[in-house]
């Protein structure tokens, strides 16, 4: 039996679990902090807009944000075991959640000062690679892309004659 393979496996699992959990916790803290700071700027999926009274549109522009988040060894192992039984692949849920929320935050960062982001859409894709056996398996990384149209307003000042 290949003992060294087993040892490498255990080390990678421990590394993946400890480092992965720490990185995830840190990322979530940062996401929550930035989301709270940007809370006053709404994002909506519809495309209609009402211009508030006394204001006019200064600028409208498409904004995008994307993030690629990778899984760790521990999560990948949990997921591959999950395929035997079916059900929720719990270890990947946070991966997708983090990627999307990060993409939305980055989109908002492009829209500083905008009143609203209209018609937002999210796309996700995986980043594939072939492993050493030549089987095409996902790298276990997900890319989320968020895009929408940001609208900036100006106050209408009374015209001075």
């Amino acid at each position, binding site marked *: 039996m290949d003992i060294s393979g087993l040892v490498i496996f255990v080390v990678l699992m421990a590394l993946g*679990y400890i480092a992965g959990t720490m990185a995830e916790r840190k990322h979530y803290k940062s996401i929550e902090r930035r989301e709270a700071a940007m809370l006053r700027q709404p994002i909506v999926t519809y495309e209609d807009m009402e211009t508030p009274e006394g204001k006019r549109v200064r600028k409208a522009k498409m904004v995008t944000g994307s993030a690629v988040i990778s899984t760790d060894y521990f999560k990948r192992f949990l997921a591959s075991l999950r*395929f035997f039984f079916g059900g929720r692949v719990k270890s990947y849920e946070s991966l997708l959640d983090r990627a999307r929320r990060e993409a939305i935050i980055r989109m908002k960062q492009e829209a500083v000062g905008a009143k609203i982001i209209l018609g937002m859409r999210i796309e996700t894709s995986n980043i594939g690679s072939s492993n050493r056996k030549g089987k095409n398996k996902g790298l276990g990384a997900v890319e989320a892309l968020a895009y929408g149209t940001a609208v900036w307003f100006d106050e209408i000042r009374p015209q001075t004659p």
Partner: protein
Amino acid sequence: MKYVPKPLEGNVNVSRTHPLKELLLLCGGVLGLVLAAYLALGFAVDWIVPYVPQELEEKIAAKIPMPPTKHKRHAEYLQQLAESLAENAPNDAGSVTLGVMEMGEENAFALPGGRIYFTRRLLENVGSENELAMILAHEMGHCANRDHLRSIGRGLTMALLASFLINSDDAVEYFIGPSITLGHLSHSRKREELADRHGLETLVATYGHGGGATEFFSRINDNEEYKHPPKYLSSHPAPHKRVSYLEESLAEIYGAEEGELTPLPDWWDEWEEKSP
């Protein structure tokens, strides 16, 4: 319409299960599943083996290349010994063919088709006919129990299970591969014990006493050259264990009395050529 900014509390999109709990549950489940499949298939193999006709076994055996045999005189002697042992054996081993081969290790093994090989090194170190008879009867026990068919069947079972795992992650193979191997080795140790028992019964029935039954195992146990892996990683029971259970079974069949050992013939130390 008016925008009402509200922060979200909690996260509905991520399950609140501790990852380590999930790991334990999944590992336990997968292990259980694979071991159950292995046991079920292994049981099916054990059930079908006695019904496999001798001709089929010989056909399988014909596909396996056999090592060249040397030292005709010793092989002839072993052949005669095997025939006299067969008369007293509890289980019929069918027809066996004996051979001697050059190999640096003290060993004897049975191959499909009733072929039993002794290494020259083992023959050089053997002290009496009784000791030789015990080893020979043990290998004949493997033939009678058709253990190589069982191991071929189990090998196929493992290959089948492995093919299911090929599509999964490398990590899963690291985890499940060894656990199947452990089950496989445990089965192998059980077959060895049965063959030992067969050898012992044959020995006592032939010579009227159990002298020489444990000498070989005591010798390899004392030999520093052979590193014995821990029990769970070994395909054979540990030699000192074999000595003690052989002594126990001996007491059970015959009583602990030692009888006279039959010496080997005078020409025993004359070999066809020099040891490599």
